């Protein structure tokens, strides 16, 4: 074990309990053209929502993964986001308020990352919304191949693919897709995407103040989650090319993407890894893809689903077809993802 300073991890904070609402207030101040924040319900809502006849997309989960989800509220992506406390699933009341705020009569898709807390709270929220006469389809993301999907786990975690689901399903909804179609494309993206994460350091939640796990100065967590959940195993740090090879092998061992396929290659920073390293990882990834006969016809490199200040990286590969590519390319205008508008 290293002698890392366990006392505190310093943060820009006022009262730790106010981090989420104060940050949301900042998000609204910076992007009032795109969204509004309902601080009482702690939800982020697209300006102009609800749009009559459009299927609405709502996602949410613990805070600490920014820009996910609030940074993806806007045109062509989410209609609302409900952030909980840091790393804590929001409560059904928030999800219900968000669902009501954006329902345009065509139904609402709940995009739920597969964690027990998120699943249970969204389940209660969907029941409440249906009691209110709103049609809800829940789509679970569970793309993390670091976790075995078996009787012995709560199933795979939802990680990087969630960003891609939100973008692509958002485009489908913007294009006039029905509730079943939007939910269908979201499930397709989830089915065709797989992720794997590696962390070099732990993050620290604002309330605890210290790192969630101790890690030696030569160690990495292989298969880490986005909540500081330790990975499946601890390994010695290796050259990036080897790490990326192992990650790619784990992903491709579980993804139906034969040689010759096109993929969307998503290199995601977990918050504390500088961009210069993310592009280095992307470079190593392109070599691995080449080795497997895959072409990255689309890509995304940056911090999109983070774990506070954790140093680490996740890779998500999504097998692309024409439909998904077209929806990926469709215009999007949110605080964190923008093109075509």
């Amino acid at each position, binding site marked *: 074990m290293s002698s890392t300073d366990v006392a505190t991890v310093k943060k820009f904070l006022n009262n730790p309990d106010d981090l989420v609402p104060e940050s949301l207030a900042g998000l609204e101040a910076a992007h009032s053209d795109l969204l509004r924040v309902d601080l009482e319900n702690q939800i982020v809502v697209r300006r102009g929502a609800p749009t009559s006849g459009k299927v609405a997309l709502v996602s949410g989960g*613990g805070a600490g993964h920014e820009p996910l989800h609030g940074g993806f509220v806007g045109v062509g992506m989410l209609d609302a986001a409900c952030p*909980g*406390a*840091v*790393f*804590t*699933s*929001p*409560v*059904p*009341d928030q999800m219900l308020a968000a669902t009501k705020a954006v329902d345009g009569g065509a139904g609402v898709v709940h995009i739920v990352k597969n*964690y*027990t*807390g998120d699943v*249970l*709270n969204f*389940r*209660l929220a969907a029941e409440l919304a249906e009691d209110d006469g709103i049609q809800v389809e829940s789509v679970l993301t569970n793309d993390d191949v*670091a*976790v*075995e999907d078996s*009787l*012995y*786990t*709560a199933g795979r*975690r939802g990680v990087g693919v969630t960003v891609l689901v939100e973008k692509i399903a958002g485009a489908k909804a913007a294009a006039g897709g029905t509730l079943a179609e939007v939910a269908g494309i979201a499930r397709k993206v989830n089915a065709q995407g797989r992720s794997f994460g590696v962390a070099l350091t732990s993050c620290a*939640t604002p*309330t*605890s103040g210290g790192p*969630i*796990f101790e890690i030696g100065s030569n160690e990495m967590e292989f298969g880490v*989650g986005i*909540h*500081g*959940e*330790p990975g*499946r*195993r601890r390994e010695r740090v290796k050259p990036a090319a080897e790490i990326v090879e192992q990650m790619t092998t784990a992903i491709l061992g579980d993804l139906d993407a034969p040689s010759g396929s096109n993929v969307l290659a998503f290199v995601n920073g977990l918050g504390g890894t500088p961009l210069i390293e993310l592009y280095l990882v992307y470079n190593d990834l392109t070599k691995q893809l080449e080795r497997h006969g895959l072409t990255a016809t689309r890509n995304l490199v940056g911090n999109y689903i983070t774990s506070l200040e954790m140093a680490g990286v996740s890779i998500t590969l999504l097998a692309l077809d024409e439909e998904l590519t077209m929806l990926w390319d469709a215009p999007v205008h949110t605080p964190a993802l923008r093109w075509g508008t």
Partner: protein
Amino acid sequence: MDAGTVRSWMSASAAAIREQRDYLTQLDAAIGDADHGANMDRGFTAVLEQLDAAEASQPPGKLLLTAGSTLVSTVGGASGPLWGTALRRAGRALGEEVEFDGPQLAAALEAALGGVVELGAAAEGEKTMVDSLAPAVRTLREQLAGGSELGPALAAARAASEEGMRATVPLQATKGRASYLGERSIGHQDPGATSTALIVAALEQAISRGA
């Protein structure tokens, strides 16, 4: 036992969780995401506020329904819906009665456990709060059926829940966040089982004090 019993139970639970907040969070840091103490504390703080605001005349079942709904609305995470549903089911079981006896209490707790299992689908041995709640409910039921007084029966139930809590240490988690760790979850005590033992102990305390 009456509404006052429920109020003292909730107060004692809130106090115990407040006191053990950091410990619960530490347990959760080891095999989860380091928020269980904060989650439960936030929830029970809100529960006390709601109960303070609730009319003095409300029957115990109604108070438990309020407490459960408050947990659902304020906790989040896995524990919020689970403990929230548990208390709501217990409240529903007590119905509109102004007073309740030992067997009614046992039935209410059984309903609570049923709610947890229905929602979370965990059986005993999966390293969750069920490992602490199920033995407590079973023991209370058995002790009462065997002719025990409520006091000793509750003490036995508390002991069983604590034993169940400790017995989570060697288990490998197969439900909840800790299951992602696979074998690395072995050797750590489950945070949810721990807070559950606190809540069961708070019940014993509330009733023995009231007696």
